[in-house]
């Protein structure tokens, strides 16, 4: 359940929502157990968590009728659209962690699965239903963006 919660928390970036997502995911897993093909159960569960997060995100975007979350988060001017946290909070959070949260969800999810869950490319491909080549290129772009973001923030903080 820790893996499910960790992924959900990084995808939705909110404690309460993450818990709801995990709960919802287990219910879905229970309901759709017929869909389980006997393969890697962790990948299967994480795939459900991922889908549940995506559903939540769609709902969120529709309800607020806002620009999709991630576009805001990743707009060129970071200061224009602060997230839930105010700036003071953000400074406390640590640059790297904040930069990961700013990554578009497609990049963030592969990075989290690779670096925090320590999953192989194949396992990530199975969770996301993406070809391994796509997993690799997203991971690579995630790393590149993360480095750019961290470098910029460090410079901002210094200057």
């Amino acid at each position, binding site marked *: 359940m*820790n893996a499910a919660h960790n992924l959900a928390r990084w995808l939705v970036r909110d404690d309460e929502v993450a818990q709801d997502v995990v709960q919802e995911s287990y219910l879905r897993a*229970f309901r759709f157990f017929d869909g*389980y093909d006997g393969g890697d159960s962790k990948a299967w569960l994480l795939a459900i968590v991922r889908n549940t997060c995506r559903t939540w995100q769609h709902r969120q975007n529709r309800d607020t009728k806002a620009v999709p979350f991630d576009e805001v988060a990743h707009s060129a001017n970071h200061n224009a659209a602060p997230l839930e946290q105010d700036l003071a909070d953000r400074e406390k959070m640590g640059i790297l*962690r904040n930069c990961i949260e700013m990554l578009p969800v497609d990049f963030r999810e592969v990075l989290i699965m690779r670096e*925090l869950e320590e999953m192989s490319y194949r396992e990530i491909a199975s969770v996301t239903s993406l070809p391994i080549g796509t997993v690799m290129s997203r991971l*690579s772009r995630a790393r590149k963006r993360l480095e750019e973001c961290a470098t910029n923030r460090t410079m901002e903080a210094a200057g």
Partner: protein
Amino acid sequence: MTCSQDLIEAYLDEELDPVQHAAAEQHLATCPDCSQVYARLRQQKARIRADAPYYNAPPGLRQLVRVALQNAEEPPTRSRVREWPWRSLAIAASLLLVTSLSWNILQFRSRPVEDDVAKSVVADHIRSLLGTHLVDVASSDQHTVKPWFAGKLDFAPNVKYLEAEGFPLAGGRVDYVADRRVAALIYRRRQHVINLFTWPGGPAPRTETIISRDGYNLLYWTDSSMTYWAVSDVSAGELRHFRDLYK
């Protein structure tokens, strides 16, 4: 080998097979551009692990989920009454599997003993190849090798004759693995050397996975009384084949 971001990252993520891994390692040692890229990526990886929190499930969540799952069970009807217990059982089994998986991962992470042994075995293997000290007793006859260990070790290693299967015995030596004296048996596979380290006791491996380390493949197994660690640069498949013959 040419410079490739993909390869560097696959190397970083330990996704290459031993041959590719060794080739990438060699390339990184000689290409300043790539080694710089690699160093930056490695640093980033370390920073992510250090700075990005792993959000464990809060203690109350398990209970919440349990209750939610119980409530989700519809009141049994004629048609469902037989289906639900199965379903609950199946889901319970699956969740258990997930738990045990995470547990295994934790075990793996916190398994310094196995890791120490692997490190030690690879170091011995490399030392035996680099130096001149590959064998103390050079013989392709197990009836020469086995008695040679008597008096040098407090146990008698199990020495097998596998020449007919393509793994000729080259000899034996006494070596140290994780601070104990062990028997090292040297087998050859074409131009490659397989060092087989063996000593009494030890826990059985939980999985059959090949461990890859520094471009070498490692495989370990146990029988009723002994632990065996095989290390070589032969392919994982050949190492498994060797293990199966030995068993």
